[in-house]
């Protein structure tokens, strides 16, 4: 809680002190918490400002001033040799659910609370260290990136495994209060590892290949099994991931604000120890619609496809992700074999999302209001809509009735389909409000968080302050 107050204090102080600078900054994308290797964020060697997710444009000519400066955020600079930028983020949300199964009514909860620094040492080394309290204190990002060349960089430390457009998008440039169900459920999140990445061919292609110590922090904690005599302890194996995107319109003569269509794909592979450790499905409403009921063991793979395109004030994005959790030796046998393999548990999800900044600001790299509140305007307004579906089932299930048995060959799957309609109000460069109405429909209501209720409604208003 003290940490929250520290974050709030730092933010308020910074925002008050930053007002004059903000007035001078003009329409320039806001730096964010979009971390490596988020779309648009990899070629980040800009000694003046470490750019945010989606910010692919060069920084403006910076005043060559050493020492402490405010350039949309507090910063220490010594020529091109050293830069240290402060970072902070605070979120809170008011939520209500229908049906109100907990009886809490409308409730307030803190969201992300983060403090950190990022910057560079010479033009060849970048770094970031961000700590978050959500809910427990943990280092979110802690890495160093060495970039001898724009197309050949090496990053090591803790950061996001390169998988999933929306997962790699930082919270300050998300379009909705919550990421899609598929991003929450099927992407790996952060881990400790090393990654080669870059943007060759005039930044038309973006690639990343990395090796990590585990499958990331986004899946729930692993369950360990009691060992039988003679058995060796099972550790989670290393994972590896690869992602590549291409921006084909960069090869055309389209203006820059239209040519950032990006399509790509990604793949991950990890070894997951024996236990009820498959990926699970959670509703926005709160609670599981597909819980960790089934035993798994062996490789977990993910395949993702993505497309994103910012066209002036409009933005479109879509993703399709399939995950598979192996179940080696988890069966109950028959006349001819003992402990057979079972069909994999397949998670499959997609979303299509679109936004429109009705006040006309460009969407690329995030929305930065032309006329902030109390500076001659009321900020920027954006409307957003998303449709998504996430399902879990057996891959190639045998012809037998589905079951909740933890060793069922044909598991009792479930799916969640959701509409989200939203309005985003960008008060100024640092502050925004998001209002979302989310309507979810479960295929099997009995397996949902409010048994018997297949339709779930969530209304949420979130404020966000950060730099």
């Amino acid at each position, binding site marked *: 809680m003290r940490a929250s107050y520290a974050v709030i204090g730092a933010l308020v102080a910074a925002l008050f002190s930053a007002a004059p600078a903000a007035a001078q900054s003009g329409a320039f994308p806001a730096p964010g918490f979009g971390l490596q290797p988020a779309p648009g964020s990899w070629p980040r060697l800009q000694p003046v400002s470490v750019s945010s997710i989606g910010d692919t444009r060069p920084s403006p000519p910076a005043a060559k001033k050493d020492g402490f400066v405010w350039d949309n955020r507090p910063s220490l600079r010594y020529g091109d040799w050293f830069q240290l930028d402060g970072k902070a983020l605070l979120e809170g949300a008011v939520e209500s659910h229908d049906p109100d199964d907990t009886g809490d009514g409308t409730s307030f909860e803190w969201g992300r609370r983060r403090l950190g620094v990022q910057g560079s040492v010479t033009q060849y080394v970048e770094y970031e260290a961000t700590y978050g309290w959500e809910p427990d204190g943990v280092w979110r990002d802690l890495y160093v990136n060495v970039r001898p060349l724009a197309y050949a960089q090496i990053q090591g430390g803790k950061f996001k495994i390169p998988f999933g457009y929306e997962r790699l998008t930082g919270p300050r440039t998300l379009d909705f209060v919550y990421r899609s169900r598929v991003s929450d459920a099927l992407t790996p999140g952060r881990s400790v590892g090393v990654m080669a990445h870059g943007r060759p061919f005039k930044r038309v292609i973006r690639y990343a290949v990395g090796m990590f110590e585990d499958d990331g922090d986004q899946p729930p904690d692993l369950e360990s*099994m009691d060992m*039988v005599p003679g058995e060796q302890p099972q550790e989670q194996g290393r994972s590896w991931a690869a992602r590549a995107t291409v921006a084909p319109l960069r090869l055309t003569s389209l203006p820059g604000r239209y040519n950032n269509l990006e399509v790509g794909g990604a793949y991950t592979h990890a070894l997951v120890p024996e236990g009820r450790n498959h990926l699970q499905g959670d509703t926005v409403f709160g609670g599981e619609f597909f819980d960790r009921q089934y035993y798994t063991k062996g490789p977990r793979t993910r395949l993702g496809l993505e497309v994103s395109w910012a066209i002036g004030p409009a933005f479109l994005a879509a993703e399709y992700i399939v995950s598979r959790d192996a179940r080696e030796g988890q*069966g*109950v*046998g*028959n006349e001819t074999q003992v402990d057979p393999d079972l069909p994999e548990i397949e998670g499959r999800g997609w979303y299509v999302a679109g936004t429109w900044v009705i006040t006309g600001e460009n969407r690329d790299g995030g929305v930065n209001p032309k006329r902030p509140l109390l500076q001659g305007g009321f900020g920027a307004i954006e409307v957003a809509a998303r449709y998504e579906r996430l399902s879990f089932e057996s891959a190639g299930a045998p012809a*037998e*009735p589905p079951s909740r048995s933890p060793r069922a060959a044909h598991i009792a799957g479930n799916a969640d389909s959701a509409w989200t309609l939203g309005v985003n109000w960008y008060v100024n460069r640092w502050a925004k409000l998001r209002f979302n109405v989310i309507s979810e429909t479960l295929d099997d209501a009995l397996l949902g968080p409010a048994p018997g209720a297949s339709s779930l409604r969530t209304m949420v208003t979130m404020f966000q302050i950060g730099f």
Partner: protein
Amino acid sequence: MAARRLLAGALLLAALCADTREAAAQTSADLFNDQALQRIDLYVNTRDWYWLRALPESSDYYPANMKWNGITVTNVAIRRKGTASRAGVKPALRVDFDRYAAGRTFLGLTALSFNNVWQDASGLRELLALKVYRTLGLPASRIAPVALYINNQYAGYYLAVEEIDEPFLARAFGESSGYLFEYRRVSNYYFEYLGTDLAPYAAIYEPKTRETESDGSLYLPVEAMVRAVNEAPDEDFAAAVSPHVDLEAFMRLTAAQAAVAEPDGLLGGVGMNNHFLYRSGQRAPHRFVPWDASLALAAADYPLHAWHAENVLMRRALTVPSLTRLYYDTLVAAANLFDQADGAAGAGQAAPGWLEREASRLLDLVRPAMLADPVKPFTNAEFDAGAEEVLAFTRIRGEFVRWEARRFKPGARPVY
């Protein structure tokens, strides 16, 4: 995607049709047919089977497949069961068919018990006792001898026993919508009044149906029954208690248990034990259902009045002449059943009675399974001795019961 769903739906429909077709050819009567040794296969993940055996006190469920007579039931749940019989190497098991899929049944059963024959060297006692109860028209579980295989390896001789649950109630009483309780022995209890607080009744009678109803709904009728049994005036006992207990059914059951020399049933040295209690509605009388007769056939001269004086219900019921007559009539009926001949006797021999014939027939079925049982807690010699003891019981018990019943004719004061 649509094609895949269509194919999956067609496969599921085909599987369900196949399952129904196979199941239609068999019934639960076939499963509990004691004219044959039933082979039942359970397939369990080796890790689960290890932990099921390694944790005797645990009642955790493990997934399994079960195969009987060509029918495979996938995704059943098995767990350890029993109290005194919680053996490590040869666990007694309960199979639940509906744990992982609500409403699912197998041959109309929602659950099935596999008793591990841990306390009976002959492997015959429970088979015979429950058969006697059913033959006398009492509600009791069906039971069959089983050669149980786990993961294709012989796991020993077991008894498949019909669970006391809703399908049983429907079969035995014609309806299953009432209140069913399983007795949990916490101390030597002889039906004394436990007071107006419902907690002591809840401690000994665990609800098996309508579990979510209030304690008042579940146990006020139980408290009223016990109070009536203890406090009704002698001259008005039957009239006062009959609304709460089916006294005639109680007398028939206690007589049958006395006839088969059951020392661990409704009347026993450790108080009441091994039974269920059922009432079909809030105002209906309670009925007792026997359970676990593995210690029956205790001795050919087991007294017919054992623990009558200690048990309040039995002691007071015997003061009602019509109930006393019913008790002795049932004893004689049981004795006559035991000795019911089938055909002429051999030269110089008495014709074997029904109970002896049943014991001999079952022994022929059980013997190979018992001898091959690698984990039974008895030697083969002990098995032979136990079987001979049971056979001797079957030859003598009928005459003993008739003689004793004549001696203690209705109205006479029991002598122990």
